[in-house]
């Protein structure tokens, strides 16, 4: 295949000709560039010390290293070494190292389970059997037309950039599986299709963690949590502000969403 391109757009046009089905699914190009040079610049910019305190905030110092790690442009060992070099005490990099360890953990499970990562590892702890969850990703979700400012924004961001903050991934997964009662596999396929860091192991097993088919309780959230960690950017303009499905205490939401008592 060709190697001479004048710009990113020139390359994108060539790829759209070569892979028309991929372009038809989504023709957007991510602002995150590929390549070892970009990977090195991204690595140089990480702040493992600050990461520990504010990584859960959408505007927090997340590293965006995941696409480079997923494709082996950087490996976990060199990222860990670099993180240690950025902090005065090893303990300050601990939270960041835990996140690297999750990736290693998922890869180890993938080695033992292979394609089985597509199946429920355990029954869901929601009080519902697998048959209660629908197979299809609803079209209003896929097309960012749910009317929920947060979820629609997450879908648009996923499609246009190929990246989502981890907290946004968790909220979206919980919404799809627990509020819309869709099988986690449909959401996992949607993410794999669009995420630059889409990896069957990290992706599917994280979806299973949210769904509670690979954890001891389902992950869910309420509006207050989403508003806090998003800085309120979605709730402020949301057409259903104050009356959305995420309103309420965790206890009240658990009663509404699940058939069994869910520990917090």
């Amino acid at each position, binding site marked *: 295949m060709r190697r001479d391109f004048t710009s990113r757009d020139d390359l994108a046009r060539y790829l759209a000709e070569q892979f028309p089905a991929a372009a038809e699914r989504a023709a957007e190009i991510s602002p995150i560039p590929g390549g070892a040079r970009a990977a090195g610049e991204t690595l140089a910019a990480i702040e493992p010390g600050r990461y520990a305190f504010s990584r859960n905030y959408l505007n927090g110092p997340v590293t965006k290293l995941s696409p480079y790690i997923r494709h082996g442009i950087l490996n976990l060992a060199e990222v860990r070494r670099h993180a240690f070099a950025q902090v005065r005490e090893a303990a300050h990099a601990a939270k960041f190292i835990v996140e690297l360890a999750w990736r290693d953990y998922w890869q180890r499970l993938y080695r033992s389970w292979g394609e089985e990562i597509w199946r429920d590892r355990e029954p869901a702890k929601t009080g519902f059997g697998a048959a209660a969850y629908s197979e299809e990703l609803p079209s209003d979700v896929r097309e960012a037309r749910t009317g929920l400012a947060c979820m629609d924004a997450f879908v648009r961001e996923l499609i246009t950039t190929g990246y989502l903050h981890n907290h946004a991934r968790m909220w979206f997964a919980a919404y799809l599986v627990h509020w819309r009662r869709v099988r986690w596999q449909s959401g996992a396929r949607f993410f794999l299709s669009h995420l*630059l860091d889409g990896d069957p192991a990290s992706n599917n097993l994280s979806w299973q963690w949210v769904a509670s088919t690979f954890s001891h309780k389902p992950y869910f959230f309420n509006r207050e949590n989403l508003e806090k960690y998003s800085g309120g950017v979605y709730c402020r303009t949301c057409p259903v502000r104050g009356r959305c499905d995420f309103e309420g205490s965790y206890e009240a939401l658990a009663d509404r969403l699940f058939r069994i008592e869910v520990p917090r």
Partner: protein
Amino acid sequence: MNRTIQWIHPDAMRLVEADVPAVFVFDEAEIEAEAWTLKRLQFLYETLLELPVEIRRGDVAAEVWRFAREHGADRVIAFDSVNPRFGAQRESLAAHLKVDVREPEPFVDYRGHLDLKRFARYWKRVEPLLLEES
């Protein structure tokens, strides 16, 4: 024949060795199975443009084997991957070539049994190794 080529794949987009002819094949089956969009292809392609690698598309094992024949090679080196797709391709290639799979640098060098039932159990074992500066 006593020559070697290297096979770059989406799980290890870097050279295994310098100065060994390299090939990357866009796996049409994987692209369709995971419904990749243009974003991912662009990201991978930009990575490849920085490497001295021949870029192809199609059936991975068939194209790597073709590339080996073109270079008069009877051996291929590649970094390992846990993806079953890689395992199947590696097996197909082994019918034609000596396949030398290298382990990428390990994140944690833990020699004992690791209980993977839950992350907390795995973490309990690896934490002391990972949180000390090496």
